[in-house]
């Protein structure tokens, strides 16, 4: 276990990973990117978690490294936490499904102070596409396509050269989106590595050079996800003497939103938010919703090929990105028109 090792600081941890990985001394390493609400700290997040029954212990290991253990009921996971531009990355070599379960519960308890980064599927493809400039070859080995009905894991019989266009075409053919992609980068300045990248702030290094993975995948992913997050900031409705200013976010679809999709959307939103259908759909569906935890308030409209979310008096980027992720799950082929694209 990684936490059994003693590290003085982040560089020490990274040096160990860079050496241990190629020798196969440790299994896969998972990195979870956490974004912190502006004006809050990691200590606020830990306090919130403890208040909601999630036991956390954060032990300082050096100037920029903490050991974090999380206990949720019978589940226990431990790893290292290090800062990245006032946000945080949690790194662990725990088992994937257990880690996901524990981290999910932990982040539910810290919302909206600490949230999972979110990089929409199309931007994940764009980020991987950029790697082709740095590596001789970027080979896709596996991926997960999520549609409204199911999540399908797609194995490539033989690794294929990554093409954002082809990947996008395959997802659209199935009426879904890529929620994770595994790929191998070969022939770069720092050597090769094999990893997996998810929409929801999770990256896994399976093998290879940690330094290359960190610099070429994790850092760009973090920067793009942060840009998405920041593009959702300050979208609140503004009232002034000149009138009302709204900043709706539009999700564009290729075909009309069906009544079945509207029903699916209604069900998900009504179960997760304080919400009501205030216009039942003839054919437009309008839902007024508020985030019961952080108080963000929205109107949502779905009609034709368009879905719009209008943030009202309060709309945190933490809540907004969570809502966007929910919409993306229900309408996986929808493309959000982010005003400030990374």
């Amino acid at each position, binding site marked *: 276990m990684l936490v059994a090792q003693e590290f003085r600081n982040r560089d020490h941890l990274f040096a160990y990973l860079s050496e241990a990985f190629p020798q196969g001394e440790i299994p896969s390493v998972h990195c979870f990117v956490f974004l912190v*609400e502006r004006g*809050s700290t990691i200590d*606020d997040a830990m306090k*919130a978690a403890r*208040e*909601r029954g999630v036991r956390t212990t954060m032990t300082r290991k050096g100037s920029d490294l903490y050991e974090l253990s999380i206990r949720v009921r019978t589940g226990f996971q431990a790893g290292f936490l290090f800062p990245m531009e006032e946000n945080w990355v949690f790194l662990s070599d725990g088992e994937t499904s257990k880690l996901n379960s524990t981290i999910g519960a932990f982040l539910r308890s810290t919302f*909206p*102070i600490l949230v999972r980064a979110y990089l929409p599927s199309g931007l994940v493809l764009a980020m991987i596409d950029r790697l082709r400039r740095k590596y001789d070859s970027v080979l896709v080995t596996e991926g997960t396509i999520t549609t409204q009905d199911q999540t399908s894991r797609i194995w490539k019989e033989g690794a294929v050269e990554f093409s954002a266009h082809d990947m996008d075409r395959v997802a659209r053919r199935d009426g879904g989106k890529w929620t994770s992609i595994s790929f191998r980068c070969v022939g770069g300045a720092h050597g090769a590595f094999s990893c997996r990248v998810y929409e929801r702030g999770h990256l896994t290094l399976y093998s290879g050079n940690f330094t290359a993975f960190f610099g070429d995948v994790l850092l760009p992913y973090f920067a793009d996800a942060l840009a998405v997050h920041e593009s959702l900031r300050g979208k609140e*409705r503004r*009232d002034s003497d000149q*009138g*009302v200013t*709204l900043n*709706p976010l539009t999700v564009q679809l290729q075909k009309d939103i069906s009544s079945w999709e509207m029903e699916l959307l*209604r069900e998900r939103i*009504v*179960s997760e938010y*304080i*919400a*009501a*259908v*205030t*216009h*039942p759909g*003839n*054919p*437009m569906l*309008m839902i*007024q*919703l*508020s*985030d*019961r*935890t*952080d*108080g*963000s*308030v929205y*109107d949502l*409209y779905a*009609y034709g090929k368009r879905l*719009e979310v*209008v943030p*009202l*008096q*309060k709309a*945190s980027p933490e809540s907004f990105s969570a809502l966007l992720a929910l919409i993306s799950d229900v309408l996986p082929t929808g493309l959000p028109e982010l005003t400030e694209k990374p």
Partner: protein
Amino acid sequence: MASAAKTDRTSVLRDCHIYQDTVTFFYVLFETLSKAGVVVEIEQDIPVPAGGHRTPDFAVIDSGRLADVLDHKGSLPEAARTLIELTKMRARYRTFQHNGQNVSPQVTVLYPASKQAIIEDVRTQLPNDLTLCSFDQMTRDTEIKFRLQGPVKAQGLAQVLGTNPIEYRPSYVRSTYKFIKAEAPVVYTAFSVWWLFPSFRDTKTAYQRDYTVERDVLLSRLGKFYPPWIRNNLQLSSSRVNKALEFLSTIKFIDWAPGRNDIIVHSEKGSRSGDLLEYLAERWAKAGPRRPPKGTASIPEDQAVLDDFGIRSTGPRTNR
């Protein structure tokens, strides 16, 4: 009994939807007329020669003179009742005092196209000088279609009502203003209040079950959903909010009583109730006929008081 409650719940919900459609209608027509250079006033008090005033939905001013008055009907009752209402309305708007002169504007009733059959039943009995204009905002939610069936005085008004369809972007219209006319259903107001409550929370205390919201601050925030062009008739009166708060208090969503500024919100309430508007409509329907709360009394019009919004209210007086 259950069936009766269900019917009532449905009608409560329908009233809420009609109200929202009405807000949309007013905003779209006001904006369209304004962009066409037509001077229009919404729900303004206009004096009448006999004393007092009338408050038409739309008053169209042409060359400085009151030319047309439009009365909007979100729905129509059965034929006999419609005939009575429209006849009375025509009489009510016969003559105004405008800029020191007595004027008789052309009166037009705007009614939903879906109620055309009712109009046909009474058409021959309606006052001859009443102009009819149907509108359809139900076929598509991004446009309103008018069918003007008589004269109007202001040329710009005739052009606008003859433009078919008037298109609009629903998100901008419906998220800009949520209240215009006075008679917002209590359930709709209660939902709007409940929907806005979480926005007063501090994220650091977000998981506390109860939190406090000041009524004054709530009124101020609700006031943002009013158009500024309703000058002397800001409509969501304090008493309307009080009624919504009383309802939420009755079903124990909040702890509040008339006269108190602090509202204690029980955040867990309604969290497993599904669609909140449906739930509140159900609770409202089950509660049966409403009576004024104890300690309240209706106020004669001549004793009307100004409420927090500066609105002259003759509704039940509460000990605020």
